[in-house]
Each structure stands twice: as C-alpha cells, then as structure tokens.
C-alpha cells in the first residue's frame, strides 16, 4: 500500500498564531481517511497547505508523490477539492459552475454529472446567487465527484446538507472508495466519520492528538453497560476501570475501560443477569474525552484558551 498524503511535523503560523504545530498525518492510497477536530483546530489550514494555497513554514508534505507547493498545477489534475464554504460566481448557474470547475481540472464525466445532479436533486439552471448554502455545497460535490481524479479532498463537505442528502453523500463516498479513490474527509460530525472512514486523524490546536483505525482508537475509550441483576450490583463499583457508576433500583449503569471489560462481564454474570445492554464506544466519547478533559485544563490556563482561538 502506498501513501497518498504524507505530512510530517508541519508548522504553519499566521503572525503570532501557530495554526499548525508539528502536525503529522498519513493517508494511504485507497482509504477513506477521517480528519476530525473542532472548528479552529487547523483542519482547513492543513488542507490549504495540501492544496498549495498556503505555504508550509516547515515540515515535510508530500501529496501523490509530489510537492503540493511546487507541483500544484500537475497535482491538481489528479485531485478534486470540496471546500466547507462553497463560494460561487453569483451570475453563473450551478450547472455552469460545475462544468467550469470540471473543465479547469481537466474534464468531467458527463453521464456521471447527470446522474449526480439527479441524485442530489440539484436544479442546475438556477443562478448561484439564488442557491442556499446546501445547494452551493451540492454544486462543489457534484463537480468533484464527476471529475476523473484519484484523490478527493473534502473539507466538511456536508455542512448545510439535509439528512437525506447526507445519506446520498455517504453512498457516493462508499462508491468512490470501491472505485479505488483515496478520500480525505475533514469533519466534525463523528457519526459520519464512523460510517465512512477506515482510519482517522484527530487534530487539536494544530497538533495531531490521535491517529489510527477506528478499532485502534476504540481501545482508548470505554464501553458503556446498562444491566439488571438478581443480586445487588454494588460490588461492581470497586472493580478497576469502572467509571460513572450508578445503581438505581436494581438497574446498574457504568462505563468500563476497554481493557477491563472482560473482568467486568465475568463479575456481572455471577450476579445473575436479567437484562444487559452494552453500547460500543462511540467516537463521540473519544472526542469528548480528548476535548472535554483538555478543555477543562485550558480553562485553568487562560493563555491556552487564547491559543484555541
């Protein structure tokens, strides 16, 4: 497996603000890579460096085997970009904008374009100034997906799409993945990343804090268990790796560290289980652990809060 995107120790500053600080991310060819982080964490800055729109201060960045700054034009023939906030020429129609972006990239698949317009229920005859945000996003998504490229870079592409359109978007991404395309999907929507992505990089304040497959990342988090037992479940509270323990009228609820789950299940079954619900760790929780805890620290250190902005 080859590497489509390789970023090592990337630094990008804007004046005194370090937007990216020793940021590292690797995307393998053919994978859908989730790029997660809250607003202002540096996702768009990293993507703009990849697109050669911003110049890296230091660090090594390789995109499809080339230098994103030096070889921008050649590389851009092989990729398509969907920005998070699509800005179009108000006097052109959506259909015209799709064609222009496709042609400037080196051509687009007419049949696929027509199919996508149909699927996304986009009216290509409307002037861009009349489009809602969601419709502008659709224009960029259709233009990108209808292009014959090997890499798709998408920066929060579904912002403004309704839930139905989001499902269609997910189907499209899965099809592109089957067709062998590499996709970098930046998002702050965890469920979307869970559904679509093979691997994930989490960015916080310009630095990558976690990277790996979803399974790998789940080891870092907790499973949540709700159970009804015949005997009193109070003893469970003493076990290692148990958190947020609540016992209420025969019903017990707790979170357990993934590496302690085996022992917890043994103990609970010895109490005579009437009913048990186990919820796998969600990315949401992983995310909250990273940001929740660290943001609490940040509150204690005001200068760090400043840096988040």
């Amino acid at each position: 497996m080859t590497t489509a995107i390789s970023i090592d120790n990337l630094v990008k500053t804007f004046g005194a603000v370090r937007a990216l600080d020793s940021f590292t991310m690797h995307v393998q060819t053919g994978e859908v890579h989730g790029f997660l982080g809250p607003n202002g964490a540096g996702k768009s800055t990293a993507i703009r460096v990849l697109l050669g729109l911003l110049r890296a201060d230091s660090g090594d960045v390789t995109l499809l085997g080339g230098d994103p700054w030096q070889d921008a034009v050649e590389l851009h023939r092989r990729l398509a970009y969907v920005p998070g906030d699509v800005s179009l020429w108000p006097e052109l129609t959506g259909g015209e904008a799709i064609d222009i972006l496709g042609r400037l990239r080196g051509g687009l698949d007419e049949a696929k374009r027509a199919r996508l317009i149909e699927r996304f229920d986009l009216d290509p005859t409307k002037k861009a100034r009349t489009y809602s945000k969601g419709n502008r996003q659709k224009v960029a998504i259709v233009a990108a997906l209808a292009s014959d490229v090997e890499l798709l870079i998408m920066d929060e592409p579904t912002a403004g799409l309704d839930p139905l359109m989001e499902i269609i978007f997910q189907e499209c991404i899965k099809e592109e993945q089957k067709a062998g395309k590499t996709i970098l999907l930046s998002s702050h929507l965890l469920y979307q990343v869970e559904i679509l992505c093979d691997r994930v990089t989490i960015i916080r304040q310009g630095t990558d804090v976690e990277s790996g497959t979803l399974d790998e990342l789940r080891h870092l988090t907790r499973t949540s268990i709700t159970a009804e037992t015949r005997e009193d479940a109070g003893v469970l509270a003493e076990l290692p790796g148990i958190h947020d323990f609540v016992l209420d009228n025969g019903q017990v609820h707790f979170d357990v560290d993934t590496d302690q789950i085996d022992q917890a299940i043994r103990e609970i079954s010895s109490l005579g289980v009437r009913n048990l619900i186990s919820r796998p760790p969600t990315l949401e929780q992983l995310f909250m652990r990273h940001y929740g805890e660290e943001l609490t620290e940040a509150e204690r250190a005001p200068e760090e809060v400043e840096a988040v902005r």
Partner: protein
Amino acid sequence: MTGSWTLLRFILRRDRVRIPIWILAILITVVGTASIFPDTYPSDADRQARATLMENPAMRMMLGPLQGAEDYTFGAMMASEMLGMMMIVVSLMSIFMVVRHTRAEEETGRAELVRSSVTGRYAGMTAVIVAVAGLNLLIGLLTAVGLTATLPELDLTGSLVFGAALAVTGISFGAIALVSVQINEFSRSASGMAVAIMIGTYVVRGFGDMLENWLMWAPISGPVLQSAPYVDNLLWPLLIPIAIAGVLIPLAFWLSDQRDVAAALRPPRPGPATASPRLGMPFGLLFRLQRGSLLSWGIGLLLFGMAYGSVVNEVGEQYADNPMVSEYFAALGLDVGELTESIVAMIAMFMALLVSVYAVGTVTRLRGEETSLRAENILATAVSRIRWAGESMVFGIVTSTFILGLTGVGAATFFALDSGSSSDFWMVLGAVMNYAPAIWLAVALAVAVFGIIPQAMSLAWFVPAYGFFALMIGPLLGLPGWLYNISPFEYVPRVPSVDFDPVPLAVMTVIALGLILAGLIGIRRRDLSFV
C-alpha cells in the same frame, strides 16, 4: 410599525462609522471648495471669466444650468458648479443605505430573524426611511451652516436652499431605492436599478440643459437645479422631489405586502444548465464575468468621447482670450497659445483617467475573488496562480486599451466632422492613445499591490485618484510642480499641445513591466489570504 424605533437605533449603531464618514466627506468637499473661492477668484473680473468658461453646452450637460451668469457671485458658483455633483453624491449615499438595510438584509437571511421577533411588517422599512431622511436633513443643515460660516458672501437663505436641495434629492432617491428593493431580489440589482434611474434622469436632464428645452425639467435633478440657491432661491421646484418621495414611499410599503420576505416582485429567470464550451477556455470565465462591465464602460466612454469631440472647437473659439483659462492650462503644462489643441490634450487626459478607473478595477477584482474564497475554487484546479492573475491582467490591459481607442475614435470622429479636416481625426486619436502606457502603468501597479501587499489593495486606486486630483483640483489649489509629478499621467507629453516624445512613454512601459514582474513573483510566492 412595532419595533421601528429599536430598528432605527440598530441601523444607526451599525452605521456608526459610515454615517460620520459620509457627513464629513460631503461637508469637506462642499465647504472646502467654497473656502478657496476668495483666493481663486479675487476680483469681479475673475468671477466673470469663470462664468464665461462655464457657459457652454457640455458644462450645462454635466453640471446643470448656469445660474446668475450676469453677476457670477460665489453663490452662483455653488449653484452652477457644485450642486449637481453633490446631488449625485447624496443620491448614491441614500440608495446604498436603503438597499444595505433592506434587500441586503433579506438576502443574507438576517431580515427573517428580525421579522420573526416582535417587529411589525413595516418596521424595517420605516426605520430605514426615517434614518435616510434624518441623515439627509442633517447633511443639508450642516452644509448650510458650514457654508455661511465659512464664507459670509454665501448668505444664510441661499445656504439653506442649497442644503434643502441636497436633502430632498437624497430623500427622494432613498424612496426610489425603497421601491427598487421590492422589485429586485438581490441587493446588486436593486441598487443597480436605482442608480440607473439616477443616471438616466440626470442624463436626460443634461440633454435638456444642453439644448435648453423642456427636458431640463426631468425629475429629480432638473427641478432641484432650477431652485438656483443664492441666485433665485426658488423653493417650489423642491416640492417636486418631495411629492415623488411622498408617492413612492407608500407605494413601496404597498408593494412589500404583495411579496414574501426574501422574494421579489420580479422573479429570477433560469439560466443554462450546462456551460458553453467557451467558458472552459482561457479568458472564457473572465470574459463572461466581466462582459457587463466591459460593455457599459465601452458604451459610456464612447458616448463621452463623442460628446466632447463635438464641442471642443466651439469651446476653443469661445475662450481664446480668457485669462483664467490660460492660467488653468498653464498650470497643467499646456501651450496656451494653441487653445483648441490644449483643450484636446486636457480632454484626452480626462478620458484616459476614466479609462484607468476601469483598468484598475479589472485587477482589483482579483482581491475580491480571493477574499470571497472563489479564487480557492479555481486555484484548487489545474490553473496556476500566474495564469489566474495573468488572465485578468492581460484582459485589463487589452480591454482598457480598446476602450481608450473607442473613446478616442468617438472624440476624433466628431471633432473632425465639426472641423471638416481629416487630419484632425488623427491628431485627436493620437492625443488620446498617447495615454495608453500610463494606463498600463496603473494596471501594473495594481498587479504589484495584489502580489505583494494584497491587504492594501486600495493603494491600487492611487493612479486614477491622484490623476483626477492633479487634473481637476490641482490648478485650483495652485499646487507646486513636484506635487503634480507624483502622478504618472503628468509624464505623458501633452500632445497635441506639445510635440510627441516617445521617451517618457517607453520609460513608463518599462516601469510597468517591472511592476508586473514583481507582482507576478509575489503572487507566485505568497499565501492566499482571506482577510
């Protein structure tokens, strides 16, 4: 109407910087101009000479009828030379203010938020028209007080009529804009329609004044100019714009009931579902985006050239012995012995300055594309930065040279028809085309600013802005020579008043090439910046 008061305060709060700037700019222009009158025209003879200079069809067209020519007092100068221009300024101010707080709000969806709260349906419109009316009345009053306080020769009655003339003009164009925003779905088309009405009526009035027929009463500028502050002090013509506002404001309220929030009376038309093949080619998108601007500038300047070409001879004969004119032309470095040639040279420069405004705009729009993130769409495709910016630059240079030629041909044709000599055609066309390198230099400076200091893009307007200043205000202020020499336009030989000299033009072209090179290197090397 519930909530009007709150919204009014909100408008004043949002425009707390804009409003004082408008007030100050207008006051400084009007009162500042009046304050230099005593030095510029120390004697009665000087004032009468000025009247003779102003007494021609082209001036009547542009500025309005000449008032009090037999005794051309400072007040008569204000009424004849200042009022028309300032009316345009307050009209634009009022149109933009109304559109900004009505249609632009609906477009962004902010109006929906406001309307969903405890505000009446008419609250927004009431607030904005009250704000615009108040601002115009305040400007009128401050102008009147400022004029009389600065120059006692300007009597208070006349000053009050002058201020009232400005105020009613602003208010009536605010009312026109209020109707326009009901009809048009977008703020750009809404202000476009109102501005077009303003220019259209001003031009019709201009033809009326030029030909001295009934068209001179074309509203709104016609009656207002006929009020003749300081000279006749007529108040009844000012009732006409007030009546227009009185009809249009209720009409706008009524029209607003005939439509939904964010919708318009004129529905938008669908466009093509696919792009024509030309749009994907180099210059294709650029030409499509710029064709409206190219067309309107081209036609406008062609007509302008034709109008000037047809009056030059007459003006030249009329002012052959006028000392003021000689002084003015001498200050501009023109040969006063050959008056017609001097006028040709001056008009050529004026037209070239207008073309340079268009030319600089073709490059500064790149910055708009960059900050609006549209540039990102293009630059993330297989288009290099050099090609992206270079297309705009080449387009700017080629089309501005073309428009300059169009203006020149218009002026030259009508001048030659008037004089009956075909050699005059080439003389005038040469005088105009002579300025092409100065326009290229203006484009080149804009490219350099865009490439090197994009945050200071407005610096690119230096060449046209300073050029107008040096040409129009410089001689009045009696500027020292070195202050003229800052403007590149000053280095263009004043053909046909003086002999043609290719050296400064070649030097300018070389400097332009250097600036373009520096700009393109900057564009290649810098980050895109979105703020």
